[in-house]
């Protein structure tokens, strides 16, 4: 392997190296050094994220199985930024007595899933894609069950692994049909021989089902609420943002590069599923009492909006999807960061516990409000720009009715986001959650999210950069 080849694969190699380093750190530290492992992992990962931004060669490896292009590197960097925020937010929770002993396992598993996601995004061959997706899923199921003292955590882990296994089986069944009819698994070659006959469309449907599971699209979303509620908060935020985001990225790449022949079919499929996803996600979120479940359904409906960017198959669509995932990372991690801080300090996870939060913790309330407004798409925060560009991309290809349904769903979502704002600012409460001060890492993470929420909208260079790296069908 020449140095060039190593540099092309640098994201994955650095992640593997990081996992080994954390493992070594685990071996060489005693029981009282555990907390240092957390700081060590965060610093290591920050270095990896920074290294990802260095401009290096693009190219393909392993005969075309692995593709590193400017677009995939951009996607991986976005995922890394999100993962870094999750890492930073996790440290304070992991510092607790009951979580401290297996801290290195937490980080090793998390780094492994990230490596899997990176492989998945860079895949040029369905086998690489499948390896990536499996590597991304299985450690997360272990992480969902991390909290040994709560039954719901174990329940979440089991539900995640069983339903992932089923959906992966369906996914690879579909891939096998495509292999059977085209004789190849390389993306570039499939595109040339793809005819769109019935068996291939069936294979595509199974592929779509497998991916829809990961992205939590209705009707493949039923695992989402229970898993998000049961998992530890930081794993929930990781699942909702990074896992979903990377699945959306590779789904978009495969749709645009492998299946353009059956574009009519997948446009119809996405149309129906996105309407269902937005509507059902929003309607179910209204009734939720637990804030994690609430944010789970909210992220289901966000996936519906993201599908609007995909449906046109245009360059603006890909740009708006990538941009929206980045905005979504900052907004959702901001919201989950506040939830994590409150959960760590008081153990409370119900929306009614947030009553009167503004009077005791004004800054946390403000960060939560800004994040929720970004998710709802209210100016001047970045979520407004993200949603606007998604709708513009769909409108460019004439899907005005879909855009109308989407904006009406935005109104419904505004209702339930305002319920949380109402709880914090307007509802009176005799015993609100007491004033507490989060540790510095949590505060840095939350500040980074707020900065991201504001900067992403007003600094148009980010969107322009993303657009230049996007491509349509």
């Amino acid at each position: 392997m020449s140095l060039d080849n190593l540099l092309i694969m640098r994201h994955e190699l650095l992640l593997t190296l990081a996992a080994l380093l954390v493992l070594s750190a685990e071996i060489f530290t005693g029981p009282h050094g555990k907390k240092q492992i957390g700081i060590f992992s965060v610093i290591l990962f920050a270095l990896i994220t920074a290294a990802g931004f260095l401009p290096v060669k693009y190219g393909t490896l392993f005969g075309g199985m692995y593709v590193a292009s400017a677009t995939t590197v951009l996607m991986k960097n976005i995922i890394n930024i999100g993962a870094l925020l999750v890492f930073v937010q996790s440290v304070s929770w992991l510092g607790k007595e009951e979580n401290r002993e297996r801290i290195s396992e937490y980080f090793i598993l998390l780094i492994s899933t990230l490596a899997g996601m990176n492989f998945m995004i860079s895949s040029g061959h369905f086998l690489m894609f499948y390896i990536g997706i499996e590597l991304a899923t299985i450690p997360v199921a272990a992480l969902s069950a991390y909290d040994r003292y709560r039954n719901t955590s174990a329940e979440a882990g089991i539900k995640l692994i069983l339903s992932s296994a089923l959906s992966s089986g369906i996914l690879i069944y579909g891939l096998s049909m495509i292999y059977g009819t085209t004789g190849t698994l390389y993306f570039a070659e499939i595109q040339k021989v793809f005819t769109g006959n019935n068996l291939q469309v069936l294979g595509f449907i199974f592929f779509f089902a497998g991916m829809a599971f990961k992205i939590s699209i209705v009707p493949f979303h039923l695992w989402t609420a229970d898993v998000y509620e049961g998992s530890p908060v930081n794993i929930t935020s990781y699942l909702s943002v990074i896992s979903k985001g990377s699945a959306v990225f590779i789904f978009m790449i495969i749709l645009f590069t492998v299946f353009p022949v059956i574009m009519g079919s997948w446009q119809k499929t996405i149309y129906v599923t996105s309407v269902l996803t937005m509507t059902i996600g929003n309607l179910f979120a209204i009734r939720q009492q637990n804030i994690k479940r609430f944010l789970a359904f909210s992220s289901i409906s966000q996936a519906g909006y993201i599908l609007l960017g995909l449906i046109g198959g245009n360059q603006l669509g890909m740009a708006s999807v990538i941009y929206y995932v980045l905005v979504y990372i900052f907004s959702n991690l901001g919201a989950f960061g506040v939830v994590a801080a409150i959960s760590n300090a008081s153990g409370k996870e119900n929306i009614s516990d947030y009553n009167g939060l503004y009077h005791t913790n004004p800054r946390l309330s403000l960060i939560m409000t800004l994040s929720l407004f970004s998710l709802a798409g209210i100016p001047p925060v970045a979520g407004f720009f993200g949603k606007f560009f998604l709708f513009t991309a769909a409108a460019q290809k004439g899907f005005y009715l879909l855009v109308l349904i989407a904006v009406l769903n935005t109104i419904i979502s505004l209702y339930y986001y305002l319920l949380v704002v109402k709880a914090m600012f307007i509802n009176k409460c005799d015993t609100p959650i007491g004033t507490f001060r989060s540790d510095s890492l949590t505060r840095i993470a939350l500040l980074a999210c707020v900065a991201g929420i504001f900067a992403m909208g007003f600094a148009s260079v980010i969107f322009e950069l993303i657009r230049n790296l996007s491509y349509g069908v």
Partner: protein
Amino acid sequence: MNILSLFVIIPVLTITGIVLVKDVKRTKLVAAIGMGIQLIMSAVLIFLYLSQRRAGNTDEMLFVSNVLWFKSLNIAYAVGVDGISVAMIGLTSIVVFAGIFASWEVEFLRKEFFISLILLATGVFGFFISIDLFTMFLFYELAVIPMYLLIGIWGTGPKDYSAMKLTLMLMGGSALLLVGLLGIYFNSAPGGGKLTFNILEISKVTMPMSAQRLFFPLTFVGFGVLGALFPFHTWSPDGHASAPTAVSMLHAGVLMKLGGYGAFRVAIFLMPQAAKELSWIFIILTSISVVYGAFGAIVQKDLKYINAYSSVSHCGLVLFAVLMMNKTAMDGAIIQMISHGLMTALFFALIGMIYGRTHTRMINEMGGLMKVIPFLSVCYVIAGLASLGLPGLSGFVAEMTIFVGAFQHTDTFHRVVTIMAISSIVITAVYILRVVAILLLGPSTNEHYDHLKDAKWYERVSAVTLIGSVAAIGLAPFWLSSMIGVSLQPIVDRIMAIIPM
């Protein structure tokens, strides 16, 4: 630095000042100084604008500044004003200034109140200076969210319900508006060429009729929800009644004008053919607004509800006039926007002051207040007379112009709806005089209220500012209508050129 951007920067600086000030008591001072500077700025702008026009500058928009923001979508931070926008900016500064003084006694979470109020004002100012559809929409939505907090935290009565209903319905309007704006954008270059969000450039092309027929209703209803178009006006009575004083002033006085201004500047200006074709539907709806709003006000017993329905009626009249699409009626529409803005702000301010003293808004619990609080009562009577269109006050000028313009249409349909709308004058007189009679005149009915204090200095500032403006427009309307008329002329010319009348 473009002078127009100052109108957005000064409120943002005021908000920063309020955030940073240590002593909560100083908040009011910072807010008052900030909005006072804004008021002076708008006077300066009017002066500069008029001197530019006198110097012979005949551009459609003055003080234009165009900063490309998102290159790939041709979104720009584009600002510019003409006579109409300048007048609206003047209205907003006066009402915000009066509103600050009307909120002098807010105690609970004072900093947050003034921050939300000025954030609301920022959105409104930004809307009036923008000539790029994206930027306009951004400021439009920015103006809606502080309303939820303002009504929900500092409101009275069924405030949670009213705040949520108001926010969701107004966002529903902006949802429809978004689809309309995207439709306009993608049809802004029918002959090939660059798509654009800039209003001036879009106005030079003619959009294909099929697109216009789809997007004109969406855009018009989108703005109409804010402008109290029947049947989307239902957020208004509860919203205004539950809101605190300054918020009602700002909302009825200024925000509802965003709807009228937007319907005029975006829907009708950019899609005149569809406007002509489909105007009959909306004329019917707006004349229902006018009459229904007035009838609704007659049966109310709560002062704020009376005024809220009155606002529905008067703002409906604005949309009615705009749809008439001739110079006189549109002239009247804009004067009505300004006149009603000042008037309703005055009304809500006075109602707030009366409520602060008697702690009730029900008219049959109070009576004969003229003897007890003469200053406030006289102000209320003047406001009432302006509302029912007494000559010498601004309401008469506006309504007269509108009805003359509307009557210029000679066909039966327009004549009939104009007569229906004119009947609202009588109905307005009924509810206004009814309130004045029960509330203010006659003997005092409740001895608890015999010892109320009359207006304090800040309340007098608030009331006098607004009455002065109302009287100025009523007595000498030519300075306002000439400023507007010059700017309306190119718009009307364009509409006339495209549509054979």
